[in-house]
Structures are given as C-alpha cells and as structure tokens.
C-alpha cells in the first residue's frame, strides 16, 4: 500500500471515529437526560404524556380574541395563547413595516431637518431595551385615571387606565377574527398572483375595507349602526372596541422599537440604489414621489427583504415579553400552564415546536418573496 493511500484511509478512519464519538455522546446525553427526567418525575409524582390537554384549566388570564372561560380545556387555552401571539405579531409586523419605511425614507432624505428628526427617533428607541420600553409604557398607561378622566381623542376614541376605546365595526369578536383572516388571505392571494407592489397594496387595502363593510352589514346586531362608537355613560364606556392596556403597551412598544430597526434597514437599502438610476428618473422628468415609488423602493426591496424577514421573525419572538406586563401571549399561557399543571416537558416542547413552525413559515415566505423580487437575469 502506498503512503498516500495509507494517509487517506487513516484520515477517513479518524473522521469516522470522531463522528461515531459524537453520535455516542449525544445518545448517552439524551439517555441520561431522559432517565433523569423519569426519575425526577416519579419522585415528584408527576405523570407524563399529553392527556392533560383535555383537562380544565380553572384559571383566568388577561386577553383573548375569542370567547373563553376558566372552564376551558388546556388545548383550547393554549390555542388562545397562540392566537394572541399571532395577532400581536401580525399587527406589529404591519405597523413596524409601515412606520419603518416612513422613518427610513426620512432618514434617507436630503432635507437636513427631516433626516435629523428621523435620526433622533431611531437613536432613542433603538438603544433602549424593548422590555424596558414595554414596562415603562405599561406603567404610564396604568397610572392614567379611570374612564371619567379619560383622554378624549376627537370624541371617538378614549384613552384611560382601563384601556383604549376605539370606534369600530359592529361585529362580534369572532367576526373580527374572521375578518382579519380574510384580509390576510386576500393579501397573500395578491402576493401569489404577482400583482405589482403598489397596485397590490391599494387593491388589498380597498378589498379589506370592502369585505369589512359587507361583513358589518350582514353580521351587525338587529337595528344597530354599522359602526360602534364608544361613549361615556356613567362610570364606564359603552360601545366601541376596547383595547386593554397590556395589549396597547405591547403593540406600541414593539412598534416604536421595531420601526427604528426597520428604518435603518430601509435606509441602508435606499442608500444602495445606484445614483445613476435616480438621475435617469430625474432626466425623464419624474416627480420625486414617483422616483421614490417606481425606482428607489422597487430597487431597494431586493436588499431590504432578507433583513426585513429577520426583523419580522424577531417581532414574532418579541411578543414573548408580554409576560412582563401581563399580556396573555403563548409564552405567558405556557408558563401559567406549567405552574398550574406541572407538565413542564410537554408544554415546553409544544412551545418550542410552535415557534419553530412560525419562524420557518416566515422564513419560507420571505425567501420566496426574495426569489421573486430578484432581478431576472437574461
């Protein structure tokens, strides 16, 4: 046997040994962990398995989009937690992307006052931990007075320590959930149908409003108006949609923090658009707005989408700080379930799998979007 071959086979043997050792160590660690867990569980008199999902919970929590009671089963309560997380996550994805694009565009502006103001905003909100902003905001909201001292916003919305009262469509909570899903479905439909960006956004917005009005026409209670507007009667508000302060604090703080981050992403993307393209637009006599919407944004999107997708995933994960201010997101519900039922391992496993699924869905979506937006090379 020649030396070269000998060396090669020795290298191969070594590589196999290392890999076998890793597999063996992993198996050993998992086996050790499992047997320890079994020992600990029997010592603590806990049963394992998922049968607890059928049991009643017997405890209450702060927020749910759909009907709930303390007699709900565990799987239903966990589902509500998931719904809350997705709800806050999607709202924050939309608000942060919207404000992020505005602030990022201002950051990119040549006008010194606008870029300065946007910079101040970004530097303040990006450099303070999100959880601190959420707790701070929550503390400020909770110190607002009762409904009688509510801050009146143009007689249609009221902000008090009990929550934000908003005018809204006269539909039941489940009807509202259905509307949100319909809106999301319409949006995804337009993305799949490859309608161009701005037209797609416009039609999406229009059709969402249309569907909402239609739904309200059909679903509103007998003899009531299309909209429900909050009004102070006695010591409390009637009518309108009530947004609890936990939800409000969570959404506003994630929006402030997240849009500062997205603004930086957008600014970076806009700055990368070659000057020649902008100048070509100017030479063609395009207005500043159409240069922005027809040249800069479509070009910038290609470098914006990948980090933007990461930011969206971050937003979904950030909803877990809801536990710090008592918002019943999935993590809050899971932690509560653990302390009440003791099914630690099963619940943590469910939580992890759910987040893996959410993140891979978003990653899949942004990868797909990114592939679609890439310049078609001929």
């Amino acid at each position, binding site marked *: 046997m020649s030396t070269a071959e000998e060396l090669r086979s020795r290298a191969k043997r070594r590589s196999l040994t290392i890999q076998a050792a890793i597999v063996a160590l992993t198996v050993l660690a998992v086996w050790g962990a499992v047997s320890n867990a079994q020992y600990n569980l029997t010592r603590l008199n806990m049963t394992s398995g998922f049968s607890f999902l059928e049991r009643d919970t017997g405890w209450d929590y702060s927020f749910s989009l759909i009907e709930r009671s303390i007699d709900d089963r565990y799987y239903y309560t966990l589902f509500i937690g998931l719904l809350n997380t997705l709800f806050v996550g999607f709202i924050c994805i939309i608000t942060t992307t919207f404000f992020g694009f505005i602030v990022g565009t201002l950051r990119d502006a040549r006008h010194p*006052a606008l870029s*300065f103001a946007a910079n101040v905003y970004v530097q303040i909100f990006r450099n303070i931990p999100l959880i601190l902003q959420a707790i701070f905001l929550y503390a400020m909201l909770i110190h607002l007075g009762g409904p009688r001292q509510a801050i009146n916003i143009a007689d249609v919305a009221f902000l008090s320590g009990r929550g934000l009262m908003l005018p809204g469509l006269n539909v039941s909570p489940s009807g509202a959930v259905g509307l949100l899903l319909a809106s999301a479905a319409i949006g995804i439909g337009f993305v799949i149908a490859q309608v161009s960006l701005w037209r797609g956004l416009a039609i999406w917005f229009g059709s969402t409003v249309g569907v909402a009005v239609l739904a309200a026409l059909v679903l509103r209670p007998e003899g009531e108006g299309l909209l429900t507007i909050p009004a102070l009667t006695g010591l409390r508000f009637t009518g309108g949609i009530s947004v609890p302060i936990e939800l409000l604090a969570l959404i506003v703080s994630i929006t402030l923090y997240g849009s500062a981050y997205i603004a930086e992403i957008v600014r970076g993307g806009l700055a990368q658009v070659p000057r020649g393209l902008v100048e070509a637009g100017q030479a063609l006599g395009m207005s500043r707005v159409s240069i922005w919407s027809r040249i800069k944004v479509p070009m910038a999107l290609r470098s914006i989408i990948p980090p933007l997708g990461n930011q969206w995933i971050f937003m979904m994960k950030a909803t877990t700080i809801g536990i710090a201010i008592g918002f019943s997101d999935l993590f809050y519900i899971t932690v509560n379930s653990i302390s009440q039922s003791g099914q630690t391992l099963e619940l943590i496993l469910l939580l992890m799998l759910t*987040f893996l699924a959410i993140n891979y869905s978003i990653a899949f979506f942004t990868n797909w979007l990114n592939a679609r937006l890439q310049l078609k090379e001929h």
Partner: protein
Amino acid sequence: MAITDITPPSQFTEARKRFVRHGFGSPQASFISVLVFAVLAYIAWKFLGWAVFRAVWSKENADLCDGHGACWSVIDARHRLILFGTYPYDEHWRSTLAAIAIVVTVLLSCLPAMWNATRLAVLWIVGFAAYYLLMEGSLLGLQQVTTDGWGGLSLTLFLFAAVVLLGMPMGLGLALMRRSQMPVVRWFAVIIIDTIRSLPLVTTLFTAAVVVPLFLPTWLEGDKIWRVIFGFALFFAAYQAEVFRGGFQAIPKGQFEAGKALGISYWCILGRIVLPQVFRHVLPSTINMVVVTFKETAIVTIIGFFDILASGKTAFGTAEWAPYYIEVFLFVAAIYWIFIFSLGQYGEYLKGRMAISEH
C-alpha cells in the same frame, strides 16, 4: 505659488453649505425646516422644563415634589438600590469596583492595540476574574456574597460579560463545526444553531432556569444563574456562529489550499492564516452582536433575576416613592442608553474605518 491656495474646504463649511442648500433651498424646504425644528425645540423645551428647571434634586427636599417637575429625589434616595440591588450596603465599594472592571475591560477591547485573539482572551478572562473575585469576596478574604445577593447594574454587567466571554468561543466552535467535512458534526451544529435562533431568548432562558434541572442529576444542576448564563451564551453563540460563517466565506478558498499544499496542519492554517483575517472581517457585526446582548440582558428580569430593571422597579415600590416611577424608568433607560449608544457608535466608526482601509 498658486497651487498652495487650493486647500480642501473645511468639513464644517461643506456641511453648512449642504445644510443651507437642502434645508432652505426652496420655500417648501424652508417651511419644513422651520416646522420640524420648531416642533423638536418645543418638545425639548417642555422636557427640559420638567426634567431640569422645575425639578427637585435632593432627597431632603422630597416634600417639594408637586408633580410639575421631575422628582429626582427618588434617585438621590434610592440610587444604591438601583445600582447594587440587594448587595450588602457596606460592601457596595466592591460592587462598584467590579462594575468598573467590566467597563474597563470593554473599553480596553475597543483599542486597536488589543485586537489579537490572545490579548483579547487574556483581557476578558482577567476582567471577568477581577469582577468575580471582588463580588464573591471569599477568595480575597472579604465577606462572602453569593450570587443570590448580586443585583442592579453590577448584575447586568456580570451577565453581559459572562455571556460574551463564554459565548464567543462557543460561537467559533459552532461555526467551525458547521464548516466541517464530517456530516454528523455539520448537522449537529446546524440543528443547534437553527433551533436556538428560532426560539425567543426568554424561552431559552426559561428552559435553562426551570426545565433543565429536571433532566440533570442533582450534582450537575449548579446554580440557577450559571445555567441561565449558559443558555444565554448558547443564544449568543448561535448568532455569533452565523457572523463567523460570513467571515469564513469572505476568505478565498485558495488560502486553505495553499496552506495544505505547503503541508501546514489544519489548526495551524486556521490559527495563523484564516482566523486573523476572519476576526478582522467580522469585527463590526460582532460589535453589533455585543450591543444586542447587552440590550437583551434586560430579559432576565422575567425569570426572576434582580438586574437593573428589576431593582429599578423595586426602587419605586414603596408608598413614598410610588408616584415617581417615571423618574426611575428614565434613570434606568438613560444608563442602558449610554452603554448601548456608545457601543453602537463605536461599531459605526469601525465600519467606516474598515470601509476606507479596504480600498
């Protein structure tokens, strides 16, 4: 000679010219400038009026607080609690020194003279050891304070330093494993990195604090704080591994091959040729990760640690100081902001510096 007259215009003059041209070049632009600056000035004036001009500063004057101005008396009275948590009162000097040790370590690692793996490693281990010896105390013959007693800003800095110190080699290890030729090693790294990155940090920390003890025999359990630090370091490592991966991708493959052709061993190629370039390349992103880590340490308050956020909440927890929660939150936010903003600005400066040296 005429040529000496051609001096570059000063940066300041250029900036002023640009400011006037873009900010006041047209009536609309001037209008926007005046409007925006007026609004900003109004907000700043209102804030300063509350926070400075009408504020009460000392705890002796706390009865003068009337709600029209900031009541900084609460900071005067409770700053020790916010900064040191439940650390024994007479030993606060140790906590101060320990915090300074961490800050000095961070500052020193910003100097280009320190950019060398050995020096950085020595610096951080020394800084961290100094912190631990001072805080724990028993090895220096001082009164022993166990980790349960640590709190406030010192605890935040400790978590930060421990996570970076532990997470950096773990991140490098994961990145190397991910590049490995051996499929089992590669997949091992991929699964760990992707799982940790998909989970919210608070889930990882909660698992480390509450769930992991179920899996471990009692002798391996360790202190809660060390389990949480390990979980946090894993989080740091999973992200940092991706940063390193970007750095490795920037190194031309030919360098490895040249090294191999010369018969240099794998570890020698790595340590002497590749890693020095990778470190230089990933520096800006690494600083970004360090900034994120500092910010995310605030999460530990959820799983029951007495960091600066939790101690701040305790500071206005008494009936006397309860109305002045805004002052306390602003104080804590300002501390975070100063650390995070300066580190972030330093990262920006480095990025600019490297962009220049690249040409």
